[in-house]
């Protein structure tokens, strides 16, 4: 696909990525018969967290998809999806810190220190913050080879994010396990390719 077409395609993809936000706004304002339901604070936190995780997995699916389909242009969408993941996770964090805890710093710090699932989630959020801050072209240039190393943080951040979800569920682990399976597949493919590449390199080198 030509660069021009990629640029054109970015517009509808950007619009589609905003649909969850539009639904959230409609739910908050009570438009189109939508609402946040009986426990709006919980609904807000779960909705934004779920979409942060969804976009994180979409972002991590780009590289395997590119490899499987041979469509190199797919990588041009990776940053956008990554930033949408971060955008929904910022809303997730603000829903928790601002609306649930009303910015009561004492309670928030106690949660981060004492509640393991919040410790995990907050750690992942800090990691992704570093990635979002260094996502600009200028930062890519300035950091050079270190940029690639830094952005490998997305793997532990995604693992911590799914773990965060797994640890907050009371008994029904089905949904967090589905996310874990999806993430395991995406990371497993990378590990598999890497292993094969190394083996090929080893066998082709002179004995």
């Amino acid at each position, binding site marked *: 696909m030509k660069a021009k077409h990629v640029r054109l395609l970015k517009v509808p993809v950007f619009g589609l990525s905003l*649909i*969850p936000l539009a*639904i959230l706004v409609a*739910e*908050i304002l*009570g438009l*189109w*018969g*939508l*609402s*946040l*339901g*009986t*426990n*709006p*604070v*919980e*609904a*807000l936190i779960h*909705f934004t967290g*779920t*979409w942060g995780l*969804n976009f994180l997995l979409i972002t991590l699916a780009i590289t395997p998809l590119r490899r499987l389909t041979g469509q190199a242009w797919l990588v041009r969408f990776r940053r956008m999806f990554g930033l949408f993941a971060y955008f929904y996770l910022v809303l997730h964090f603000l829903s928790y810190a601002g*609306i*649930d805890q*009303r910015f009561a710093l004492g*309670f928030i710090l*106690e*949660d981060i220190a*004492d*509640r*393991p*699932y919040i410790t995990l989630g907050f750690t992942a959020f800090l990691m992704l913050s570093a990635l979002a801050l260094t996502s600009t072209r200028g930062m890519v240039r300035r950091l050079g080879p270190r940029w690639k190393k830094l952005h490998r943080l997305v793997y532990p951040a995604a693992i911590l994010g799914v773990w965060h979800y797994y*640890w*907050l569920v*009371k*008994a*029904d682990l*089905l949904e967090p396990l589905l996310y874990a399976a999806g993430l395991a597949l995406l990371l497993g493919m990378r590990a598999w390719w890497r292993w094969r590449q190394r083996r090929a390199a080893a066998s082709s080198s002179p004995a």
Partner: protein
Amino acid sequence: MTSKNRIRAWEITSESNYLNRRDFLRGSGIALGGALAATALPRVAEARPPELETVAWPGSTDEAPNSWEDITTYNNFYEFGTAKEDPYRNAQDFVTRPWTVRVSGECDRPGDYAYEDIVKPHTLEDRVYRHRCVEAWSMVVPWVGFPLGDLLKRFEPNSNAKYVAFKTLYDPDRMPGQRRPVLRWPYREGLTIEEAMHPLTILSVGVYGREMPNQKGAPMRLVVPWKYGFKGIKSIVEIEFTQRRPRTSWNMSASREYGFYSNVNPEVDHPRWSQARERRIGAGLFAPKQPTLMFNGYGEEVAHLYAGLDLRKNY
């Protein structure tokens, strides 16, 4: 005084709340991926259960009860699914008559008792209680019921009866949530005999002056207002008087997190979250949490049951 000729407590405080149907019930099911579909609660064919003859109860809290919609569309009843709206969605066709309760163990009148045999001899009271879920949300619920102790005395427990054990119906055909092993079915709960005989402990057969909606634990359930909500076992089919402490479902599932007593206690946190504050359902998106009260505010009546007991160890 019966329900026909008096004003019930909640009618003064929240009649408008009670009469206004929530907007989201009209929400059309917009399907845009699973996560989105879950946000719009589809309208389920729902007929309000018939009214019951009840009398006022002087001990009710004067806090405003939650609306019918809050109470009947947001609760945990894993037998019908693990999402909060699942019981509302999946329990509408649950048939609860005939209903039989098996009474056994350390008592002189064991046997199978029909719903009518159990409920008929008792005067039904409107009891407005605070309800505190272990997940740190709370409601105010106008239950209909009668003291459990009055019922238990009819079975003539003997001096070996130190505990009372309860079981929920196990019937995966009628309770679809039981088709997955989320908990070990059937659901079990238990109380000490002193807790079971306490005048605040009720067998509840309704809410808002009507028969118990299916999704709330029809036809009869336990309500123990100073304990976390999960102690209030629903759709009871077995009552057993025992000498030894019975096993209870959430304790079997995660004993570090859910103890046998499970009294509401702001000072003893759940291992994964704080119990110091609670979110009152219905207060809205921007309402602050409120402090959780020791024994859910019923300490004056029940604290003596636990005199000398280390509540940190006996959580």
